[in-house]
């Protein structure tokens, strides 16, 4: 039998028995819809979390700091030696000094961090307000980023954070004396910096400026931390092991992400299980329908067999019918699930904008996942159809044709 004829014969039920066909499809649709919504929720949650921490390059970076105990120091030479590793694309250092920050007469203790723009990308530093340093800001000498906790020092309420961008602060660096004593030299930077952005680092008092600007006031021989950008994902653990071997302390964000992903995979699995139960119920319903259809059409099978249909022709007819129903069920489930998810998203966003919160997408539906669901439901259709189809194909034509 040719495919187009098979398609024509196996879609007859839409014309001859539309109600039952559409109800079966709807049954399958509700099942797959439940899966789509629940797994979509999992994807959405995962996306919300990962969006906060994951940036392309961040995942391929290692944070290297000195363990201190072995006297391993992070110096400009260390940076060069890291960069010589063929698997390393770049290494960006961070220097840190204690300092006093003054805003409108209020002064507090912070750490001033001197970085180059790549460091921000590698470490995944983002701004909750204002903007971060970009590549072209390397020569910037007049702006600064503050951590949210710093604003607390000045008694800035959360709602006023946005308004703080553009305010001006002054700094005094506290540099350890070079003679090895515990004395601290105070270096007064005789100008005011404009606040260009607020970071998202919670619980630390940091002020971040460009490394060359910091060098203008203090000599830097030792870095606090170096972000190493590894070329590929495969080399990440290799480089990491090498660095640990050398005695450095290494942290990788990718690990954190991996762990987060694992947790979300677990959540998704739980959600998918609930959806899967719904899908199983509808698949059983569909199986039942296919079996009843078989009984109802026994005579027709008998007729077809006596006028020249082979057992396989009969089998293909039944299987393709149930695949069509399953696939249509999948499509309708996707439509239902995605609409529901997007509706909830919209509702939450409206709610969020009413209360001044940030808009979030609680549900996410990656295209791969939807494609999978469509194919999967066709597969469920195939499975529910194959047993009735096998039975249909092995019926004795004579018994079948006499069946009433």
């Amino acid at each position, binding site marked *: 039998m040719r495919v187009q004829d098979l398609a024509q014969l196996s879609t*007859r039920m839409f014309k001859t028995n539309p109600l039952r066909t559409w109800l079966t499809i709807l049954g399958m649709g509700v099942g797959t819809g439940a899966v789509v919504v629940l797994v979509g929720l999992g994807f959405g949650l995962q996306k919300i979390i990962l969006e906060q921490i994951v940036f392309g390059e961040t995942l391929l970076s290692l944070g290297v700091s000195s363990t201190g105990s072995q006297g391993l120091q992070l110096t400009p030479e260390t940076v060069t030696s890291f960069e010589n590793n063929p698997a390393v694309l770049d290494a960006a250092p961070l220097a840190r000094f204690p300092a006093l920050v003054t805003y409108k007469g209020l002064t507090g203790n912070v750490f001033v961090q001197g970085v180059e723009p790549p460091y921000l990308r590698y470490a995944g530093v983002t701004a909750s307000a204002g903007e971060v340093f970009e590549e072209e800001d390397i020569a910037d000498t007049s702006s600064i980023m503050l951590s949210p906790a710093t604003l607390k020092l000045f008694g800035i309420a959360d709602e006023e954070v946005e308004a703080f961008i553009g305010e001006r602060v002054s700094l005094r660096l506290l540099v350890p004396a070079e003679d090895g004593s515990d004395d601290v030299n105070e270096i007064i930077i005789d100008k005011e910096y404009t606040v260009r952005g607020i970071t998202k680092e919670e619980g630390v008092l940091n002020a971040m400026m460009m490394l060359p600007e910091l060098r203008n006031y203090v000599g830097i021989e030792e870095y606090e931390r170096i972000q190493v950008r590894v070329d590929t994902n495969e080399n990440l653990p290799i480089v990491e092991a090498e660095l640990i071997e050398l005695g450095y302390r290494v942290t990788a964000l990718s690990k954190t992400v991996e762990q987060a992903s694992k947790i979300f995979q677990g959540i998704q699995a739980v959600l998918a299980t609930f959806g899967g139960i719904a899908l199983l119920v509808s698949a059983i319903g569909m199986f039942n329908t296919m079996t009843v259809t078989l009984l109802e059409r026994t005579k027709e099978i008998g007729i077809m067999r006596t*006028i*020249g249909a082979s057992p396989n022709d009969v089998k293909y007819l039944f299987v393709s019918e149930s695949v069509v129903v399953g696939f249509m069920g999948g499509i309708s489930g996707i439509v239902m699930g995605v609409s529901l998810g997007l509706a909830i998203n919209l509702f939450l966003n409206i709610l969020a904008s009413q209360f001044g919160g940030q808009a979030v997408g609680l549900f996410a539906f990656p295209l791969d996942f939807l494609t999978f669901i469509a194919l999967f439901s066709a597969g469920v259709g195939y499975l529910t159809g194959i047993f009735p189809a096998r039975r249909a194909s092995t019926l004795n034509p004579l018994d079948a044709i006499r069946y009433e």
Partner: protein
Amino acid sequence: MAKPLIVARDLSIIYNQGKSNEFKALTGVNTDIFEGEYIILFGPSGCGKSTLMYSIQGSLPPGEGTLLIKGDDVYAYPPSERVYFQRHVMGIIFQSFNLIGTLSVLDNVALPMIFCNADRTTRERRAQSLLDRFGVGHVSHKIPAMLSGGQQQRVSVARSMVNDPKILLADEPTGNLDSISTQQVMDKIDEINTFDRRTIIMVSHNAAHLSYAHRVYYLKDGRIVREVVNPQRKQIKPVREGETIVTELEQLARLFPYDSVDTLRVKSLVNYLTQEYSFDQLNRLEHASSLFIQGKIDRDSLIRSMILSYEKGGAEIEEKEARRMASIADRMMNRADDIRRFRARKDNDDVFFSQDKLAERMKDHLIKQYRIKLSKEQDSNMTEIIADRVTGVITADDLNQRLMNGIRSGGLALSEHESDDMTRYFEKIVAQGIDVSYKA
């Protein structure tokens, strides 16, 4: 000698073999069917005729024995290859049409070609031309439920022919049809046999169809009990001299299809003892009489067809005898008309033409016929008896009795012999004159 198309040797078919409800539907069947033959499998229900047909069709594997079609053992092939025979060698029509209700008539006819991977234009052209040929081309886009039974069966004949099969199997194709549709379908099947030269194997229990076939197999209780060759059709199966001879029994089998061979032998003997005419002559005579009774021929034509020689289609009866018969028949028909009029008056209450007069005319006829003299009292009694019989007040037995009864008690006081004769004669006239058609 041509090889037979279908050969069955010691074919037995057992349903539910090995179970408590085991049933031997067919036992030791031997048959040779030749290409181009029209075979009818005839017998009462449950005799195994359908079983034999479906076994040939490929749906019932034989329990014992062999069945070869075109020299191939169909059942040696797996079901997936056996369909080749159902696609290209055999077409089938059923008693209950078995069209698929969810497909258009055209698609129904084209369906066997769909299974053969024919493309759409080819199969639709072929289906349409067949539908046209069988007179149902104008309904090709309707669904089967919108067609009459006769139309549906012609559609299914078209379907059976769509792959141009060698053998057409028909399972009581006219069992669900009215007489006009039956005639149309039988004519089409006959045309397929005589014009397209296809082999027909038909299951039937309608004796009226037997004359279409070359040969009829009579089945009873799972066995072929008789093979009857139709002498009116030129036989395809080669007959070896002396092996099967056509006897009067074959002829009688067609006249009395439901009787056993023993009964036919009895009929043959009794016919010889009581009749001077052969079954053939009687047959011709019956045909001529039927035309006469219907008023389609007059008395002279009746005589002519009676005396005409057998070769020319007549009954070959002596002229004198023929004239005697014709004159009796003519008189009887006239009196039968009187009875009809009498009964019509009765129903219409027509007062102008008295029933008495009609009854008297009949009485006069009987008196004249039997040359008897009656007293005045007898005469009026007889008129009354005749009127009673014709109105249906008394039965034939009552009539006989009253003719013998004493005159005082309203009879004629005839002898038993006279009474029997007269009753028999008058009853023949009554039989002709009474309208027995059903009136609601």
